[in-house]
């Protein structure tokens, strides 16, 4: 008798637990409000956010924060077991660290086999078979230049090698077209590190070997030469001395205002913003070209960004609805034209190019074909610490406080330190 009652009680409890889950799936999510934490280039226009609310009934509280500040915000909240927001940015460089700590809910159910083909970057955001973010920004780097400045200096074609880039910049400066032709960030922020990685690749080398040992320590290595190139360009007056206080988004403003000729580590998606007359002063003359390298054969790497749902979020269903909406083809297209986020869906890229809406489409697609990941084995968990050590050292070298040699040694030492943990 008692046993039957026990079984009945257990069954009742199990049923009660199952009911809400079922109810949640059935009931519309109308009236819920979710908070979304994204970097500045994902500040969705009002029409888009209003449209989302109209379609799903979910209200959005969109919080945008400088990219360098987002990671710390996510960490402080996540360690405490609370969700920094219901949907947050998940950058390729955080996958190792965030994946290991289990702070993000797996989104494998949202992407089936065919969708995964259309979104190739999902591989980068998979940690231990769990998909912790759906990619929304297909960022990779290429050279963006101001055609008008080049013509004014008598240069017909964009540079194909780094030597040509330097020579072109010098010519532009000498002709007085612009004071500081090269736009490169040199502050202690992530943009500085990633431009150095790009230049390392341009010099024909890599950062780490397959055993994650640094390859940039000897003076004839690509990384060393890349840093020396940057500092020499700065000393030659080709980079604005104020760049030591500028982030990547701020040097992009210089380019948009026509104060720089080359956005050296240009973001692929930004071409849509640069060619938009309502947003940039160089709309008619901004063009993309393949990243120049020492050998002339272009190389670049990818820095995709995704949106993820923190495991501690209390509005997971609504958050997933937002993620699904955000990477839907038509919204990826609008996100590109309004904000410069290059679509991650191959199908969308193709249709954009076919309809001629892909600015500098030819160069973009050619560059996209050679995009490599920075870490073939997946982003290590110590990457964020390594990267901030890199930008701090480059910042000091740019201010003349460290020689290139000393800066490289400092980076290597702190890489070893980060890896040891």
């Amino acid at each position, binding site marked *: 008798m008692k046993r039957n009652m026990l079984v009945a009680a257990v069954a009742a409890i199990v049923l009660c637990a199952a009911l809400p889950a079922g109810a949640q799936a059935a009931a519309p999510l109308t009236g819920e409000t979710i908070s979304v934490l994204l970097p500045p280039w994902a500040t969705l226009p009002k029409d888009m956010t209003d449209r989302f609310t109209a379609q799903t009934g979910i209200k959005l509280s969109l919080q945008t924060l400088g990219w*360098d500040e987002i*990671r*710390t915000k996510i*960490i*402080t909240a996540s*360690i405490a077991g609370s969700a920094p927001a219901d949907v947050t940015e998940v950058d390729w460089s955080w996958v190792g*660290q965030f994946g*290991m*700590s289990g702070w993000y809910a797996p989104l494998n159910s949202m992407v089936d086999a065919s969708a995964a083909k259309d979104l190739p970057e999902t591989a980068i955001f998979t940690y231990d078979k769990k998909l912790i973010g759906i990619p929304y920004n297909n960022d990779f780097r290429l050279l963006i230049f101001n055609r008008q400045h080049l013509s004014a200096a008598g240069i017909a074609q964009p540079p194909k090698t780094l030597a040509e880039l330097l020579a072109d910049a010098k010519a532009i400066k000498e002709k007085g077209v612009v004071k500081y032709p090269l736009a490169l960030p040199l*502050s*202690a*922020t992530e943009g500085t590190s990633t431009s150095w990685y790009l230049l390392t690749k341009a010099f024909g080398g890599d950062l780490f070997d397959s055993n994650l040992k640094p390859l940039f320590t000897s003076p004839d290595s690509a990384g060393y030469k890349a840093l020396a190139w940057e500092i020499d360009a700065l000393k030659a007056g080709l980079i604005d*001395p*104020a760049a*030591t*206080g500028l982030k990547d988004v701020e040097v992009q403003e210089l380019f948009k205002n026509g104060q720089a000729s080359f956005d050296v580590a240009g973001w692929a998606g930004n071409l849509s913003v640069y060619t938009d007359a309502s947003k940039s002063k160089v709309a008619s003359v901004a063009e993309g070209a393949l990243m120049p390298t020492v050998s002339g054969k272009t190389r670049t790497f990818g820095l995709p960004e995704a949106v993820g749902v923190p495991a501690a979020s209390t509005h997971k269903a609504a958050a997933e609805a937002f993620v699904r909406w955000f990477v839907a083809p038509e919204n990826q297209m609008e996100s590109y034209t309004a904000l410069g986020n290059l679509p991650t869906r191959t199908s969308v890229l193709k249709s954009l190019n076919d309809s001629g809406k892909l600015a500098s489409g030819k160069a973009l697609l050619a560059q996209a074909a050679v995009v490599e990941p920075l870490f073939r084995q997946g982003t290590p*968990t110590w990457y*964020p*610490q390594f990267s*901030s050590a890199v930008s*701090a050292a480059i*910042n*000091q070298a740019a*201010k*003349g*406080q460290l020689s290139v040699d000393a800066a490289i040694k*400092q980076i290597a030492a702190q890489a070893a330190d980060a890896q040891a*943990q």
Partner: protein
Amino acid sequence: MSSELVNSETALTRAGNASAVNSERMLGFAFVAPIVVVMGFLVFGPVLVTLWDSLHRVDPMRAGTPFIGLDNYRNLMSDARVLHAWLNTLAYVVFAVVLETLGGLGAALLLNRITWGRRWLLAAVVLPWALPPVVNAIVWSWIYNPSHGLLNSVLFSTGLIGAYHVWFNDRTTALLLVALVHVWRMLPLTAVILLAALQSIPAELYQAARLDGAGPFRLFSKVTLPLISGGLAIALSQSTVFAFNLFDEAWILNGSSLDTRSVLIQVYMSAFQDLRFSYGMALSVLVMFASLVISLVYVLRVYRETRYD
């Protein structure tokens, strides 16, 4: 003999008022109990935990907290970034104390002389202290902006500099400018402390000294300075402690750049960017000891004063 009388008197009082004394004790405990709880849980407890944990490895991303003895401290001594941070903080303390004391003294002397509209001048002087340091940093970072800032345009148009400077490129200038924002905020505190000290000097002393033929300089050094020495000591130790705690200004003005990184920024970064809690805790232990030693003056004065109760 009189002491025997006093003793028997107090013995009588004690016997008669034992319950009164007891209830006073209970009441005293009751009144300070919440304070003990709050300070114990949120200040003294954590201090002890910090001391203990700094001898272990405590990282939120890794399991276990093994005992590692003085390893954290050893690593701190050899960490170049930490050394940078200490030097920067020392620079802040020196700049801040010197500028705040000189400026505060000047402001206090001026306020003491002014009789008409002193209340409004005092309000204006105190305003920078009352504002959130974060807002100060934003306002001043706009002033320091290399391309469009007020500092560059004023210096350039008055011919003091040949071209616009990028102020934060040079480490010394960067430290000075960050310290300047801190001084702007903390100078009012020194000024008010010294003003209070100045106002407690009786006018007759000045009259007597003048009768003896003392000029303004002798008046200052022989009458004013000695009599405000107490207030000066307090202002100095306050300036030091606050300069040690410098975080907001350096963080907003120059971010995590090593040039201007204070020790507290390094503590914050070790904990919340590098995720090495015990490393940050070891550093904060060192900061605490340094700060305590330097403000020993203040603590001793407090103790001397409470002994007279």
